[in-house]
């Protein structure tokens, strides 16, 4: 147990203590500011991904839609999960199923979702119709 008189923890002058306290305060302020900026950034990025990344991009025709992206992701995942059947046995949520179904209807006459994904890739009209369906089904 060390006392305050020990050589390792020398007694600080009031001036040094004041400087140290100011530094600790400044540190706390900086940390809070960084945390606040990080949170704001997260909210902004969430809105950006939500808006530009798919779910509400209905009219631009430039950005691929959420449904399109998710179907492509699923096709890639199904390839990887071929060796792990347990991962594919989980029931898909209704919105996912609806979007995948709409995409498959627009791409015409494919029963496999993986095939649908590959056929609808790059087709913006299909993507637009599918995202409209997603938005409708979700609302």
């Amino acid at each position, binding site marked *: 147990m060390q006392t305050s008189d020990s050589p390792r923890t020398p007694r600080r002058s009031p001036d040094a203590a004041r400087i140290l306290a100011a530094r600790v305060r400044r540190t706390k302020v900086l940390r809070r500011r960084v945390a606040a900026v990080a949170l704001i950034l997260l909210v902004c990025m969430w809105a950006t991904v939500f808006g530009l990344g798919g779910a509400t991009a209905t009219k631009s025709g430039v950005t691929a839609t959420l449904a399109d992206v998710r179907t492509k992701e699923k096709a890639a995942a199904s390839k990887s999960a071929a060796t792990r059947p347990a991962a594919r046995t989980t029931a898909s949520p209704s*919105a996912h199923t609806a979007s995948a179904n709409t995409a498959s209807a627009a791409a015409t006459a494919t029963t496999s979702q993986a095939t649908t994904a590959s056929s609808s890739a790059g087709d913006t009209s299909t993507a637009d119709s599918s995202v409209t369906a997603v938005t409708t089904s979700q609302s």
Partner: protein
Amino acid sequence: MAALAAASGSHVFWITSRAAGLVALILASGSVGLGVSMSGRLVKGRGPDLRVLHEALSIAAMAAIALHAVALLGDSYFHPSIADLTIPFVRDYKQPYMALGIIAGWGLVALGLSFYARTRIGIARWRVLHRFTALAWILGVVHALGEGTDSGRAWFLAITAIAVIPTLALVFARLARPRRKVSAAGAARAARASG
């Protein structure tokens, strides 16, 4: 926000993970850029404040990386296991980018947290080790560009470019500068100064 969450429906975890990945990329770029600037004396000013800022940015980046991974656990589409997200090459999905991301994540976390054990590791050894943070960050950038769902989009590329290019320039500027010789006494002084 609640309206956004309601509108996003079951995609909320997936969107959260993508957003957290972007935030992690931005914060890690800021932290690495600041660290490189400090070590190469490319910025002048309040040393302790810059160190605190570097530390806070790095902790925030680690939190964002954790959220990036944890949010994926809730995604019913991708449906990964904990092992899929924490051990490289376990899941054969978008390899090698996923493995690179996992390695980068662990690298950034381990090298970042090693700061708190630097006296045990040894200051000189820790300084050498800490340089590998830039490598882990580059792996993270490759992961984002290679695996990211949004990686082909203009908005994503613009955000990534704004975050990454200045830091990359600082890393190259630091590499181009001659190394400072740090004596044992100097290292001890620096360790005392950094608390």
